[in-house]
């Protein structure tokens, strides 16, 4: 900003009185706002004791789970649609002949790398049999990388853990599955 720029007009700053120079009115103005907040309703959610209430559990995108059908078998048919739909490429499946008569393929190993996953929900959208779903479990931490790679058993255990309070979404999921 060159000082002799024609269209900048220099303005004298207003003279401040003693109180103004000591910024007293502002101190009081600012402190009243803060004082008003000390008496108002607390906003903090103290996490470990108070769990945050997730309003819409159907659509929340948390840790994955693999659903089981009525006979307790994994619902996935190893069609690789979720693996291709995933932008972060963190699902790898090995599909083999299925021992059950009514299905020709089932995943022998179904691995989701939770560390690379961005929880965008596209696998849930792409799955034709609603096998993989995102639960509303959010607080997941790990101490090593290997611990965070979820294989089939772990995903099924997440299903058993969240089976009752979160039924399978396919029936009433108002979304576009």
């Amino acid at each position, binding site marked *: *900003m*060159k*000082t002799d*720029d024609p*269209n*900048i*007009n220099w*303005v*004298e*700053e*207003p003279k*401040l009185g003693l109180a*103004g120079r000591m*910024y007293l009115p*502002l101190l009081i*103005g*600012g402190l009243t*706002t*803060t004082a008003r*907040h000390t008496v108002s309703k607390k*906003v903090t959610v103290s996490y470990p004791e108070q769990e945050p209430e*997730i*309003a*819409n559990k159907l*659509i*929340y*995108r948390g840790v994955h789970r693999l659903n089981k059908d009525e006979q307790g078998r994994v619902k996935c048919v190893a069609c690789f649609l979720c693996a*291709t*739909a995933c*932008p972060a490429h963190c699902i790898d499946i090995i599909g083999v002949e299925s021992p059950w008569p009514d299905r020709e393929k089932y995943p022998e190993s179904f691995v989701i790398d939770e560390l690379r996953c*961005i*929880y*965008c*929900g*596209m696998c849930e*959208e*792409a799955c034709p049999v609603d096998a993989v779903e*995102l639960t509303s479990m959010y607080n997941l931490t790990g101490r090593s990388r290997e611990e965070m790679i979820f294989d089939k058993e772990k995903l099924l255990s997440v299903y058993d853990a969240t089976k009752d309070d979160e039924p399978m979404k396919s029936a009433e999921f*108002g*979304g*576009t599955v």
Partner: protein
Amino acid sequence: MATVNQNDQRIIEYDVRTDEMLVNMGPQHPATHGVMRLVLRTDGEIVSEVTPHIGYLHRCAEKIGENLTPRQWVPYTDRMDYLAGMNMNLGWALCVEKLLDYDLPEKGRHLRVIITELCRIASHLVGMGTYGLDLGTFSPFLYAFREREKILDLFEEACGARLTYSYLTPGGATADLPNGWIDACETFLEQFEPCITEYHTLLTTNAIFIKRTANVGILSPEMAINYGCTGPVLRGSGVDYDLRRDGEERYTEMYDGYAFEVICERDGHYPNDHDYPPVPPDAVLGDCWHRFYVRMLEVMQAIDLVRQGIEKYRSAEGNWGVPIKLTTKLPKGEVYLETEAPRGQMGFYLVSDGNAIPWRVRARSGCFSNLSVAHELCNGSPIADIPAVIGSLDIVMGEIDR
């Protein structure tokens, strides 16, 4: 005693000689809004040259865009301007729809206006909160984030994520607004309005804030246009240009039926600024204070737009627009579309050669050009003004480095 000739060069030279210093306002600095490195050539306290070094967050989004289908690239647009994820999704969605010549149902259009204007409020709140942090006051940051958490709750209920939504996809939105969401949104707007007056008392009319920002970093309209600055930075310099009113036909049809005025100072005063604090005498058009003031008035404009959107959304019925299939074939051709993101014009240029994966994807970011003007604003100013100017440009590194 020999008369000493005052303007003898040796005296001046010897007496006030201070070597120029290269100060590194490094990639890790509380006031650089992320990872940007400013190399300041300072002569004592006065900065004579500022060269921003960017690229510390270059995440190759455009190379990835050449290997993923448009539906899969939506999460990457979220991560460009991560404070306004919805506006980025909207830009990409409209660009792909322009190429596919896809017409969106009425309900989807109003849903998009509500969601993007809410996201503009959240983005300006963070911009205002961190600007307070840059200038040393901590409480506006806390109040801004408290309000923003309520908006994030609304978004979490609508699309399942707090910050990276990938909700407005090409073709519509991943899910409809759950019932009861609209009244929750209305209650939020009611209790949000008194908080705005609180921010005004804390920042806009605060003499310390005015002393730090008024008459600092003055950007003349011609220089703003020449450097390609857009958004609140351009309107803060008095240029009356807003893509929501005079942008592309496909983008402005989203807003037809909505009454709003572009926030820009026309002959001395801002539109409907009757009940806001007046412009202080020492604030010159185009300085940091005006850019901040334009953002605060845009929050009010966005509240008004969301209210209109809610009535229109209630009366609209039918389908809200289902996302396009994962592997839809893109027609051959190229298309460029710009939308008004909170920080500037966000443009997407899509070249496709006929199959599902685009040939070239280019994202033009508003902050990229806004930051390039930092040198013009900062040379000749003391070091303490650098955070004030960079904060007023309100930059986000994810969008600059892509």
